[in-house]
């Protein structure tokens, strides 16, 4: 029957087999899991449009009104103030990313989701938004209102 001595190399051999078996199983598991994890991450979408967009034409907006335009994959808001100036800002609320709107009764930009308010310079004046809205540059090119990102100084 079995004694201590012959068992020892046997158990060593067993450990070696277990190591290869376990390692092999882990490796094959990893080779299943890794592609699945990568599959779950959506491929990056190329940002369309670049730094400039035509948001509308002169005459589209009356004083004290606004419209949403598409800037790449995100919305922007073009406001014509009561004085007749154009302002363009990011329309994504800095709180939880709802799309903001212009309130012609308040002359301010309002987010309906959580009651955030911004002034026409984009500053967050009340409610939960933690940061101001990005301000864009507005140029007129012929009849087109062209919006571009502010160049960092």
């Amino acid at each position, binding site marked *: 029957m079995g004694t201590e001595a012959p068992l020892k190399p046997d158990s060593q051999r067993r450990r070696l087999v277990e190591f290869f078996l376990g390692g092999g199983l882990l490796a094959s598991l990893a080779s299943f899991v890794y592609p699945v994890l990568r599959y779950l*991450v959506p491929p990056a*979408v190329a940002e369309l449009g670049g730094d400039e967009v035509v948001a509308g034409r002169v005459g589209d907006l009356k004083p004290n009104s606004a419209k949403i335009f598409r800037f790449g994959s995100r919305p922007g808001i073009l406001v014509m103030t009561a004085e007749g100036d154009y302002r363009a800002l990011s329309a994504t609320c800095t709180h939880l990313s709802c799309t903001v709107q212009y309130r012609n009764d308040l002359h301010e930009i309002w987010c309906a989701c959580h*009651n955030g308010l911004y002034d026409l310079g984009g500053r967050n004046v009340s409610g*939960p*938004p933690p940061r101001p809205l990005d301000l864009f540059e507005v140029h007129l090119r012929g009849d087109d209102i062209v919006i571009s990102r502010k160049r960092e100084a």
Partner: protein
Amino acid sequence: MLTSLRRWLDERFGWADLTAPLREKTVPLHNLTYWYFLGGITLFLFAIQVCTGILLLLYYRPSANEAFESVQYIMTRVQFGWLVRSIHSWAANLMIFTAFCHMFSVLFLRSYRQPRELTWVTGVVLLFLAMGFGFSGYLLPWNTLAFFATKVGTEIPGQIPLIGRPVMIFLRGGEEVTGATLTRFFGFHVAVLPGITTLLILAHLALIQRLGMSVPPKVEAQWRANPAQAREMRFFPNFLLRELMAWYIALGALGALAALAPWGLGTKAEPFAPAPAGIRPEWYFLFMFQTLKLIPAKIGPLDGEIVGILIFGLAGFLWLLLPFFERGGRGRSQRWIFGAGVFALAYMASMTVYGYLAK
């Protein structure tokens, strides 16, 4: 006929042995026995969700260009389509309501205590899953309200430091809420969540079957003092028939709600339109929504919403582990848990009402 079928089954694989535990199961009988119905009603409503969900699948199309139109088609062209969808929406809300009632009844009757900790944990996870069902299903008709609810709801995990952004991109299927999000949510709603939920329901039921029904401590003490008072009812068929009556009443309420107050569809989502005034989530998210609305922009150096989200996350996690905070039979820990339950209920109820009344 039925007897011969049963005998046939019994001869082949011991049907009587298999169903023996069910026949021996009893339900304690006392003046709080009615609270035992709530879990069963929730289960019944889940079954209705599975059935109506499968019916909706026959016509629904999960893409940004077709989703809204397909739901419109179900509601206007398909015979009784409006009823099926209305029942699905109403039963979802009722199910979450009865699940909440079930949870608080378990909390206040102290049924979560040893040895039933895992029954509580699986139950709370099931409630979270039900809310996940609600959140993912809400987007599927692709209407304006759902679009912005999803935008905000997926932005919330996105605020968690470090892991937030990848989680948000995983949920949305990209940087923004688009048709890719709809497809993902459809997958979660009809495959991932039902699979996990079914397994957990089985575990939850197995635990209840294994451990038996909990007797509230006060009743238990009375019974111990006077064993002659202790009474129980056989689960099958006595309790089950009563439970079926409760289901029937729930079905009646559901049918009445679905027929008299059919669920609306709203307007098709327009990703480049402002969020409409008066937007708010489903009622079971309203207390969190209202809190996020009230939290100031900055708390110390941190953004207010991050603080709010982390507090809710932590509270949810502690809630899940609630039974493990109870030490010994009586005393301080028990009063703390009771207090936490009362506070949670009062906070959620008052914030929900506030959310409805606030502009």
